């Protein structure tokens, strides 16, 4: 039986519109195929590593985070304050997740080789990619907001109907946050020529993280000052805080329908529609061409000769700390990839935006006080603790990035080579990250903090934070025990690890306990630091043991 031939005669005389139009049949097919590809995680299943499908574990992570958030705010007295906080958190997490994992999907020439020669219009290709992204946003936003919706339903008048309306507004808010990130990248793609975009995108990424974190930190700061257990005053600021618009919509639904809430709700809906529409249309027509140009400029990037800058010379010095050939090989491989792989940089650089945003916020709010001063300045918002937390949090990005690559198949060489010590490869890669990124970053922070507090306090505080970061890095590497760049890039991997990093609240307990001890008694504090160093050494030893047992059994699946 022969299949139906495309009607070329009609198409030949087709006008420009047929070239530009979105084909919903193709979008459906590409969307379904995209889901198959994402959900299968074939390699993981083949190796029998995961008992729970990655998508389920990611959603469980988000549901746990959402539950913690909802329960911690259950005492909040009015629906506006409650929804303002939960929506802020949900929008922030959505935007950060899109930045971390999905933005590179929309502006990535990943599957261009497979689809570029097929009769797919630019709009179709773009819509299929965005649909895939929005599907994930819908799933994560539902998992994140469902616990809060249930709390809203029970806590405030209105029951299930209010809970339902809360979910609608929450989804709209998260879609708008995701669309805003896409819009940011689309604008960057429009503004810069492709070669420059390739280089600029990592900085755009980092700036977006700073802006988002800054906005996110600002809001709880205001609320804590107001005391969250009572209704906060709706000042002029609500017109400039998007989560407040959506919160106004929820407050309307519980019967608090003043004109201000009505306007806020309208602003929420209209702004969401506008942002989503802009994100969908801004580059849809030139998307294919842009991606083709991006693919080409990647080729050019590889042709470009590497320049030996001061930074590369500094990075090379770190090889002195490698103890054997395997470590040196892992170090150098990671060094080269960090320098040349835009995708790898995209996954790491935004991390630095998080603590920097908190630092900026501390500067603005005056919250950057000497944490080791005997009589600390009373602060309504824990800027220093949050700064410490984000310094630890950035290790999540490192641990995930160093094992993943779209060229993971090249890792066969690790299995073919007569390696005595496979662990050394990952240890070398970790050393590069610590030497090339973490140490310089902490040095920059030291200079910045030294401007606003005694340098010795800044040094001691950052030293403790650095050790905690190393422990977190070891913990995360234990959960991801693979050789460098040997895993395919899975969309859900980093989001799943986010759940693990939540456990790093423990690290914050350490941080607070040690600083308190140092404040009370220098001697006891020194003892606490020694204890911390011992724990860091033990975690490193545990990591190596775990890696040794895991990597010895590792087989190449390519």
């Amino acid at each position, binding site marked *: 039986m022969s299949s139906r031939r495309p009607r070329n005669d009609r198409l030949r005389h087709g006008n420009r519109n047929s*070239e530009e139009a979105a084909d919903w049949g193709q979008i459906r097919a590409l969307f379904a195929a995209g889901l198959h590809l994402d959900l*299968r995680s074939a390699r993981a299943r083949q190796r029998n590593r995961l008992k729970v499908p990655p998508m389920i574990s990611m959603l469980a992570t988000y549901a746990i985070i959402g539950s913690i958030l909802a329960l911690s705010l259950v005492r909040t007295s009015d629906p506006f304050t409650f929804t303002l906080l939960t929506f802020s958190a949900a929008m922030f997490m959505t935007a950060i997740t899109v930045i971390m994992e999905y933005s590179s999907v929309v502006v990535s020439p990943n599957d261009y*080789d*497979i689809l570029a*020669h*097929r*009769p797919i219009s630019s709009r179709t290709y773009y819509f299929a990619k965005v649909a895939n992204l929005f599907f994930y946003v819908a799933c994560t936003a539902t998992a994140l907001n469902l616990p809060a919706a249930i709390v809203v339903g029970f806590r405030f008048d209105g029951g299930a109907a209010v809970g339902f309306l809360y979910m609608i507004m929450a989804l709209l808010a998260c879609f708008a946050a995701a669309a805003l990130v896409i819009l940011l990248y689309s604008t960057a793609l429009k503004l810069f020529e492709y070669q420059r975009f390739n280089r600029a995108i990592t900085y755009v990424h980092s700036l977006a993280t700073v802006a988002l974190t800054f906005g996110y930190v600002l809001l709880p700061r205001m609320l804590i000052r107001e005391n969250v257990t009572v209704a906060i005053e709706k000042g002029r600021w609500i017109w400039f805080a998007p989560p407040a618009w959506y919160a106004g919509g929820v407050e309307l639904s519980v019967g608090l329908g003043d004109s201000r809430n009505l306007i806020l709700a309208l602003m929420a809906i209209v702004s969401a529609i506008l942002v989503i529409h802009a994100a969908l249309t801004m580059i849809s027509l030139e998307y294919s061409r842009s991606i083709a140009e991006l693919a080409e400029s990647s080729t050019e990037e590889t042709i470009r000769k590497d320049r030996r800058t001061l930074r590369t010379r500094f990075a090379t010095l770190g090889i002195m700390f490698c103890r054997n050939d395997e470590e040196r090989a892992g170090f150098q491989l990671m060094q080269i990839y960090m320098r040349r792989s835009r995708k790898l940089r995209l996954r790491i650089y935004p991390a630095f935006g998080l603590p920097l945003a908190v630092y900026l916020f501390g500067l603005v709010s005056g919250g950057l006080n000497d944490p080791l001063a005997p009589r600390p300045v009373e602060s309504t918002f824990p800027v220093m603790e949050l700064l410490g937390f984000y310094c630890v949090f950035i290790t999540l990005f490192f641990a995930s990035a160093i094992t993943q690559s779209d060229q993971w198949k090249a890792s066969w060489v690790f299995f073919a080579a007569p390696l005595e010590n496979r662990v050394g490869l990952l240890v070398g890669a970790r050393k590069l990250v610590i030497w090339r990124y973490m140490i310089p970053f902490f040095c920059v922070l030291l200079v910045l903090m030294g401007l606003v507090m005694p340098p010795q306090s800044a040094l001691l505080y950052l030293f403790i934070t650095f050790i905690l970061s190393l422990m977190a890095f070891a913990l995360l590497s234990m959960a991801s025990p693979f050789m460098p760049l040997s895993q395919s890039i899975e969309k859900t991997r980093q989001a799943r690890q986010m759940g693990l990093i939540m456990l790093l609240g423990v690290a914050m307990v350490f941080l607070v306990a040690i600083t308190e001890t140092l404040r009370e008694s220098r001697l006891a504090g020194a003892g606490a630091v020694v204890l911390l160093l011992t724990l860091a050494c033990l975690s490193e030893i545990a990591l190596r043991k775990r890696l040794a047992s895991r990597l010895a059994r590792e087989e190449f*699946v390519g």
Partner: protein
Amino acid sequence: MDTTDRPDNAIEFRSLAKSFGDIEAVRNLDLKIPRGQICGYLGPNGAGKTTTVKMATGMIVPTSGTAFINGINIVESPLQAKLMIGVVPETGALYENLTPIEYLSLVGKLYHLERDAAVEKAEEFLRLFGIADSSERMMTGFSRGMKQKVLISAALLHNPDVLFLDEPLAGLDANTALILKELLKELASLGKTVFYCSHILEVVEKVCDRVVILNRGEVVADGDTEKLKEMTHRTSLEDAFTELTSEEDLSTTVRAFSRSITGKARGASNEQ
């Protein structure tokens, strides 16, 4: 399109050129390939073969000039032109987390084929290629040859008028390679046009009606194999190809390699 509407040339390149920064990958390429012809496109590594295929199939935009598929300008009307072509890319890129049937079904939908017809045809192709048993398995564990069979199936699924094949025999076993070679001749006799890029000169010599040799982005020879042999005063296409594209004495290169591998020139320890 009715066959009577079609121009005589199924593929036409007009001053086709592509640069990557300072590097000119393809320079002012003018070529007309009539319907029903199998055109071998040869050249050493980096000569610009794959870049030509990418431009001709609308994967990248030419720096200047354009390509026509059945008279349709690929730059101006890419969708219409792409409907008429089937491509086997050199990279062998496909969605490995899909099964062959899922992948071919997706490809069928992208070409607006009816689902049942596409699946039926896909199953038939897989059976003919001898991988029907693996049709429901994800392609992550497939060998290069198995993936190549799926790629060839995908290129032929919508019954295209023009085929662009970039190293189509890569990874294929001898029997399948033989089938493919005969199939290409059969398709050409039915009026299909084949643009065949390869490094395997024996295959090109056997299969192609015409051979175009590219070197450093420029056509250095164009004609049937006999003409090329005559032109270079050589007895085989392999020798003619070497004459046209190599600047070094190959035996000198081989000796240098050997010395480098064994390390004899440096007096390495394996002398003992």
